[in-house]
């Protein structure tokens, strides 16, 4: 019974970290998404723009997220003009550093996901829209973006799942999300198996719910793949 009490108590403590994890994921994925849209825009304007964005994507995808977090949390303080800038009150906080690092990182991956989606838009659909008299912006809004988003959705789902897992790194810069709480309980009680398994279970449930929700969205956005309503036979009486 004592065993069960410990597990239940630990579980409740870990649950307190769920809102932190969820808000880290939501804020950074949304910010990263906006940034990715911007990057894609720059990429499509000019050659140098394309190079700059490719270099950004290369650097952010080629180095570990942990290095990026450390670079922002500890590294930026070394630079004088950042310390005296208006951003410093934010960049001093572990919360905003984690958000910045996660958002910059996921922006690189999301830009790639978006690129794949945009490449999958059939040329004919765009031409048809132009022929119908739609302007560039309207074509983008009505034709290109919906098709691209639909195409990119599966890859987007796995990116969000990866982000849920990536937020655990925020515990290293002292944020108390699920992994951070689990780590502190382990160092107090030395009961690693029970505590860490419970934490893992919470992550699994979160990711399961997330993939389910995205799957629903996919089905919703692909009406043509849904089964047709059964037609009742018309009696010819």
């Amino acid at each position, binding site marked *: 019974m004592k065993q069960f009490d410990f597990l239940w108590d630990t579980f409740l403590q870990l649950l307190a970290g769920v809102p932190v994890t969820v808000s880290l994921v939501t804020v950074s994925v949304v910010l990263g998404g906006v940034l990715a849209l911007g990057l894609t825009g720059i990429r499509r304007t000019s050659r140098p723009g394309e190079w700059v964005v490719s270099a950004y994507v290369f*650097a952010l995808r*080629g180095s570990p997220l*942990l290095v990026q977090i*450390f670079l922002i949390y500890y590294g930026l*303080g070394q630079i004088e003009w950042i310390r005296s800038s208006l951003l410093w009150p934010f960049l001093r906080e572990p919360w905003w550093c984690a958000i910045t690092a996660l958002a910059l990182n996921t922006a690189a991956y999301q830009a790639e996901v978006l690129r794949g989606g945009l490449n999958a838009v059939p040329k004919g659909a765009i031409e048809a829209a132009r022929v119908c008299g739609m302007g560039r912006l309207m074509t983008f809004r009505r034709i290109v973006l919906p098709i691209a988003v639909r195409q990119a959705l599966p890859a987007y789902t796995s990116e969000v799942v990866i982000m*849920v897992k990536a937020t655990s790194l925020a515990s*290293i810069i002292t944020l108390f999300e699920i*992994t951070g709480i689990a780590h502190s309980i382990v160092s107090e009680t030395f009961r690693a198996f029970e505590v860490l398994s419970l934490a*893992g279970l919470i992550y*699994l449930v979160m990711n399961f719910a997330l993939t389910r929700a995205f799957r629903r969205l996919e089905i919703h956005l692909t009406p043509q793949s849904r089964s047709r309503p059964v037609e009742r036979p018309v009696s010819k009486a």
Partner: protein
Amino acid sequence: MEDLVAYFTLIGFGPAGWGVPLARAASMTVAVSLSAFGVGIVFGMVGCWAKLSRSVVAHGAATVYTTVLRGVPDLLVIYLLYFGGSQAIGAIARAFGHQGFFGLNGFVVGMMAVGIISGAYQTEVLRGAYLAIPRGELEAARVAGMGRLLMLRRIIAPQILRFALPGMGNVWQLVLKESALISVVGLIEIMNQTRLAVGRTGAAFSFYITGAILFLLITTFSGAAFRRAEAWAMRGMGGRVRA
């Protein structure tokens, strides 16, 4: 300009520079990543075999393995192996009358943790590669009188290797980046070495950017190596691969 000189003195190989420890740390990163990649291939092969087997138990176990390991943060897996392993060894030691906390070797823990995680991804890569082998070739091998082992050696293994190479390249990049997490259990690889250097000198930005550049160099060169291997594996197949 002065800043640049100061930077290169700091990370250079001179008496005041951190060049030698950084180079040693970079080779440690490569070593632990290679070992973890190897462990991952072993886990991936077993997982792939289990996923393709007709046994319900084996298939179920493999599905649980890939689902759990791909749904749980890597940091948690490393902690679990490190602290859980110490807990288990501590329990055994207490049974023999010893007391206290038992720390495990960071290299072994890191290698196993990242290996087990990457094995989950490797399972899917290998399974996809196996399913990409044309069925007709397997039937032809059977008809030609090959036994299972001979068929595995001559037909299946070479083809899996060819089809799996691009996916394995992705897993390798993943392993390389995950190796940075092994720093939390005390292994002196790039991440930990730069952290030590920052603690000594206070030059946080200089050293962490150096760490990032070292990782970028390793990922770039190994990525190029994988592309060459792909071109080599696909030679004579008609298709053109970017070399």
